């Protein structure tokens, strides 16, 4: 059985410009110790999906669908204990007026009843922070971006969560620092057996670390597959577009996907990608495609999947 099971997750926001459908019946799962990448452009509903897992969305959001961790719906107490988060902006995600040690200790105290200096230092060591005994008393502004992200990770894994949700953990960092952070995440999976739900739009990161990929577009899951299969046989035109937009040696021109992600107001009886797709037909605009195994054998939500008969 999988560790995390998300079934028909739907998230709506009430905004001043009207309702927004951010996630539209998304279903996916994460197995124990598995690294699953949630991929898509900005505005596809990836972060909203992640926050919805433990009810962290703002008050104007309404969430429907089933979320189960080991077969039960995660309680608010599961936050930070069973499901922990790392966010994109290490610069602003740590509290500027509290020491690093205090911020890590808080999690330990909250979920394990006690925190000790030794345990905090151990955690800082685990995420590869040099001189942890000194860093423990420092404030976030005294650390570099990469160090802050390591502190975020130390905080997140303090209680050995079953699932670590990393929302664009390397996007704000330099490339060399990125590699270090990915190493830390990989080690954590190996050392404490944490599963990882990695949210990113960087397919390089996906290729580096993920076991499986879930592609989202405009709130819907449109394709999922093992990482090698997805890179070798993208089935949905959107996935293909994402892969084409990655710089590759020997291919001088990058292809972009024309247009931008639409803001969905309500669920529609059409493929949400229809307006940007080069294979679009009348069927795409009038009937909602279902997520079903495509020509390459893995599920995709497309009436005209790639790799089939052209």
């Amino acid at each position, binding site marked *: 059985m999988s560790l995390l099971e998300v079934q028909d997750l739907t998230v709506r926001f009430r905004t001043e410009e009207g309702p927004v459908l951010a996630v539209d019946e998304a279903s996916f799962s994460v197995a124990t110790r598995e690294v699953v990448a949630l991929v898509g452009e900005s505005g596809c509903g990836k972060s909203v999906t992640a926050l919805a897992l433990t009810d962290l969305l703002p008050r104007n959001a309404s969430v429907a669908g089933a979320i189960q961790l080991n077969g039960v719906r995660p309680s608010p107490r599961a936050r930070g204990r069973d499901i922990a988060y790392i*966010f994109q902006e290490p610069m602003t995600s740590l509290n500027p007026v509290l020491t690093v040690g205090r911020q890590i200790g808080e999690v330990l105290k909250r979920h394990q009843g006690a925190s000790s200096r030794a345990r905090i230092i151990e955690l800082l060591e685990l995420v590869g922070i040099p001189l942890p005994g000194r860093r423990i008393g420092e404030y976030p502004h005294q650390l570099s971006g990469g160090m802050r992200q390591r502190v975020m990770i130390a905080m997140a894994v303090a209680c050995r969560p079953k699932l670590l949700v990393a929302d664009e953990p390397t996007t704000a960092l330099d490339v060399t620092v990125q590699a270090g952070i990915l190493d830390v995440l990989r080690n954590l999976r190996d050392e404490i057996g944490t599963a990882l739900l990695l949210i990113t739009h960087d397919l390089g990161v996906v290729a580096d670390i993920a076991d499986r990929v879930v592609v989202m577009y405009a709130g819907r899951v449109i394709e999922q597959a093992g990482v090698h299969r997805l890179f070798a046989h993208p089935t949905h035109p959107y996935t293909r577009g994402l892969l084409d937009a990655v710089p590759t040696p020997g291919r001088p021109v990058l292809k972009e996907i024309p247009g931008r992600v639409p803001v969905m107001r309500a669920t529609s009886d059409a493929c949400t990608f229809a307006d940007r797709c080069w294979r679009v037909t009348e069927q795409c605009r009038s009937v909602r495609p279902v997520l079903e195994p495509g020509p390459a054998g893995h599920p995709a939500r497309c009436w005209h999947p790639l790799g089939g008969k052209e």
Partner: protein
Amino acid sequence: MSRYVLRRVVESAVTLILATIVVFAGIRALPGDPARTLAGEESDPATLAAIRATYGLDEPLPVQYLRYVQKAATGDLGRSPRTGLPVAESIGHALPVTLQLAVFAIAIAVLMGIGTGVVAAVRRRRPAEWGANAIALLGLSVPNFWFGQMAILALAIAYPLLPASGFVSVFEDPVESFRHLLMPATVLGTGLAAIIMRQTRSAMLDALTADYVRTARAKGLSSAQVVLGHALRNSLIVVITVVGLQLGALISGAVVTEQLFVLPGFGKLTIDAVFTRDYPMIQGVVLVTATAYIVINLVVDLLYSVIDPRIRVGGPAL
């Protein structure tokens, strides 16, 4: 840290010296002759000259200034020609009254202001916020003298629960002191409370949407820990600034409040001194007021560095 403190202390000292010059020159620029006020309108030149000689008013201004500073540095603020008492002694009697009133008023204002401000931010767009906003609006728009009179009418006359006037020091009888100061301190503190409430509310609204608050919630902390430990702590720097800036208004507000509740404080002393052109006394009270301002500013700046470590170690502003 220590370099920052040293720099602020030196700056404060320079400000204090400038303040003495302004006070000294300002009073002498006012129309009116203290010797004539003292001797009466119909006095003869010989009497005036004698008075001027007694109080050193016949010397050149720079000499008068230096003598004044020299004495002030040793705690001698001169002798009031009106009362015949040393200025320092009169101030020494009046200052504790005002200080106790002000401290009590600030305590009330901070408790009420931060409390309602936090509630208003957390319970946004709900009745609790509207209630807090309405109280703040009332606190800002109702003048002290009217509120004070109504309070006396209600709580001292219609329902005699609290004394309408008089002062008892907290060091003599804490309970009686509390009873005597509760009404004036509340009257004096409501305006400040309203300002603190509004600042707290807006700072908290900012803080509650900050990334680090999302992190705190994602860590599974309780609402109280998130709101008080993370959001409020970051909002306090704004609140402290406002309190520091408003203390001046509190001192002038104390003048009115002291008159209303017949408290023998600094405000009453100031008013009496101004009306009688009591130079040494005015100099004394203004000097003490200016010193109070400068010290408050210094304390506020040093408090910043306690609350916000980025100021303490001179880190980059984010």
